């Protein structure tokens, strides 16, 4: 089997895809173009967002690779414009380390992925490979939808055809009932001959006088034949047959009969008999008109079957299909829809899908009513089981006889799994991307320390050995902490609850941080006066969560260089809460550099770090997750240049009935 790299990437796409590359740096454009062409793509390039958009509008590349930071229309703006124009487009963002936030924001705007600078060829290839796969998938879904539309159109055409034929038959019936007038004309033979029913005129003796051509062809020579002969053995001797009854009663009659043809065929017929009295009192002749129902019945059966087949198809499709009117009422829906969303016909679309009192903004159905075109949208809905579902929606117009949009069909394909996978991959990629920088820096620092120790050993320089060892120890501690954080992130474990005295727990925590604080001339104060009592928690998880805050407080003090006094207070207390169980509250107050509002708002998002190369950004994210798992909360007060106060609380007794809250997946 060839290694993946032996096959040009684009060859694995269904066609040779075109990539539009937008970057303001000429050398990166040049280099990436070469690279992308090597991978088998056709490449278009543009030096900025505006030119990129113009090019996109004329040539519509299915894949766009764009830098985020550009003068003028930047990558985010370009992304939004492209997604509005062609939501199908796969847009991959190129971001620097500094604009990780923007990169994450771009995912929310519909970017397929992002890669960070400097560009790793393998990651780029991987990302484009996925984009190609998604393109293929989307094309398949679209083809599927188009096929479905065509099938529906064909079936509808057939239905219309069948209905026309049925109508024609009904006209014939009407015609035959109008026969009595025709038959009263003296030269009935001529008109009778052309009628599409079996028409015969019988005399008083119960014999056929004359009949039309159709009768002649199928039922045999009529003249002089006994009236009941056409009914086979149903009326031996003729008594009780329709003609006989009319002769005897003098009244018209109607009945269903089976007629037997000369070639052995049988006809299910509606027979109507009319007396012709020619002005005399008693009946002189009988006009018998037999309408062949065989064909009508066959058509009817076919119609029902066709209806049923269409219905089966409609129900069996693995998409939710609804047909809606202008008020977005669901007038028809397939079983998939009814089952998955627990809704019913007659509800509005937005009630059924979104439990919302009004239509969604940018409703694709309304757009189809507006312009008669197909539209596509992606949305998140809640199904009958209360699960969020990502749906890819296609709409198609259903036209009336005048070509006006009468109803709109909506086909929704569930792409939840696809999206989940994509989110998971994105967050894994984000994690790896943002971690590797920090990890490599740490390793390099470790090497530096080791080098200093070795160099000290060689020279017999004890001071150098000591300072080198300090470096090594510091870095090893950080690496240890980081590895534990990663392990915690990678595995969402359940809480291992146990009961401990609050004060003992707080003392242990204080011990971990106090040494470092004191070594850095930070005044460390313990305030455990109100910390009497026991509490339930997963102590190892909670302790690592709180250590993150304590260490941050120390770091914030270390960054404070204006000469203000460095103080760090750690308070633990048990507080009675009204109408609730008691809470354990940990408050960490420092006089460090403080945080801006923006920093404060982002501090618990994954990979946020204010420490540059010193932090990985995973610590606080995990701290907030641990506290949330304990049904607690965190409050942060901070002012730049004054300090920060972090308050973390949790109930002293973990709700027993409730399982620990499942940790949410990474930043979404």
């Amino acid at each position: 089997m060839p290694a993946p790299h032996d096959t040009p990437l684009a060859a694995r796409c269904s066609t040779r895809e075109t990539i539009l590359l937008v970057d303001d740096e000429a050398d990166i454009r040049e280099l990436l173009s070469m690279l992308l062409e090597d991978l088998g793509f056709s490449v278009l390039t543009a030096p900025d967002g505006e030119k990129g958009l113009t090019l996109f509008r004329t040539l519509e590349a299915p894949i766009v690779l764009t830098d985020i930071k550009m003068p003028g229309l930047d990558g985010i703006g370009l992304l939004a414009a492209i997604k509005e124009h062609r939501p199908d487009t796969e847009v991959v963002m190129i971001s620097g380390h500094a604009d990780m936030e923007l990169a994450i924001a771009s995912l929310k705007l519909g970017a397929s992925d992002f890669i960070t600078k400097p560009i790793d060829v393998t990651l780029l290839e991987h990302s484009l490979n996925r984009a190609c796969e998604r393109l293929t998938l989307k094309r398949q879904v679209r083809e599927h939808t188009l096929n479905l539309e065509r099938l529906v159109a064909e079936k509808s055409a057939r239905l219309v055809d069948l209905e026309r034929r049925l109508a024609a038959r009904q006209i014939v019936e009407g015609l035959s009932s109008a026969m009595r007038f025709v038959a009263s004309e003296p030269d009935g033979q001529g008109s009778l001959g052309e009628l599409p029913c079996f028409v015969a005129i019988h005399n008083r003796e119960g014999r056929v006088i004359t009949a039309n051509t159709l009768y002649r062809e199928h039922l045999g020579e009529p003249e002089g034949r006994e009236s009941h002969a056409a009914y086979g053995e149903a009326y031996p001797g003729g008594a009780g047959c329709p003609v006989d009854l009319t002769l005897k009663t003098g009244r018209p009659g109607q009945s269903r009969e089976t007629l037997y043809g000369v070639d052995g065929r049988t006809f299910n017929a509606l027979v109507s008999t009319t007396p012709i009295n020619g002005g005399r009192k008693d009946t002189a002749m009988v006009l018998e008109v037999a309408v062949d129902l065989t064909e009508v019945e066959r058509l009817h059966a076919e119609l029902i079957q066709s209806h049923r087949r269409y219905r089966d198809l409609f129900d069996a499709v693995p998409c939710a299909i609804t047909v809606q009117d202008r008020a977005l009422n669901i007038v028809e829906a397939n079983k998939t829809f009814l089952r998955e969303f627990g809704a019913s016909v007659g509800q509005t679309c937005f009630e059924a899908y979104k439990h919302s009192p009004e239509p969604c903004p940018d409703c694709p159905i309304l757009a189809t009513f507006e312009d008669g075109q197909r539209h596509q949208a992606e949305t998140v809905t809640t199904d009958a089981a209360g699960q969020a579902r990502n749906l890819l929606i296609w709409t198609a117009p259903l036209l009336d006889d005048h070509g006006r949009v009468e109803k709109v069909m909506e086909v929704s394909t569930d792409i939840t799994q696809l999206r989940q996978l994509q989110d998971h991959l994105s967050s894994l990629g984000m994690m790896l991307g943002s971690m590797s920088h920090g990890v490599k820096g740490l390793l390099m620092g470790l090497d530096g320390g080791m080098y200093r120790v070795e160099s000290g050993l060689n020279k017999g320089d004890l001071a150098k050995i000591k300072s080198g060892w300090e470096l090594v120890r510091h870095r090893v501690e950080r690496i240890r902490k980081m590895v534990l954080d990663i392990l915690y992130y990678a595995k969402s474990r359940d809480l291992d609850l146990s009961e401990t005295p609050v004060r003992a727990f707080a003392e242990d925590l204080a011990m971990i941080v106090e040494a470092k604080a004191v070594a850095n001339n930070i005044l460390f104060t313990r305030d455990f006066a109100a910390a009497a009592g026991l509490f339930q928690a997963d102590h190892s998880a909670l302790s690592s969560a709180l250590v993150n805050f304590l260490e941050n407080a120390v770091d914030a003090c270390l960054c404070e260089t204006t000469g203000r006094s460095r103080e760090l207070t750690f308070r633990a207390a048990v507080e009675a809460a009204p109408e609730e169980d008691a809470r354990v509250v940990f408050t960490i107050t420092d006089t460090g550099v403080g945080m801006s509002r923006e920093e404060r708002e982002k501090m618990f998002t994954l990979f946020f770090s204010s420490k540059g190369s010193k932090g990985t950004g995973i610590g606080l994210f995990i701290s907030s997750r641990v506290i949330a798992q304990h049904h607690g909360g965190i409050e942060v007060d901070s002012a730049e240049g004054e300090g920060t106060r972090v308050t973390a609380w949790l109930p002293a007794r973990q709700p027993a009935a409730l399982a620990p809250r499942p940790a949410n997946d990474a930043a979404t």
Partner: protein
Amino acid sequence: MQKKILIVDDDPAVVDFLNEIFTDNGFATEKAYNGAEALEKIAAFAPNLITLDMDMPEKAGTMFYIGLRKNEALKDTPIIVISGVGPRPPALTKDIPVLQKPVEPAALLALVGKMLN
């Protein structure tokens, strides 16, 4: 004459480490913690070689490289890229060797020796 090396990296631990390796082995060094500082120092210091971290905030590595190429007198100064993430940074040509962090001192010194001769 003592050869001069300019160390450009935003991580002080890395700068210290490289500095220690080079001074231990008889080089004169100058340290810069970002692209702008490196561009400032380069003219006065006139290094024989530069170690450059391409993975600094604000594309400082690339910007420094572009700035260096604009300086006619210094543009041919040999560069070793010492980088943390990924393979070759795209903005650089193939003549520039790239070392991955963490760097092996012996390998670094061997490469420096080769490039200065």
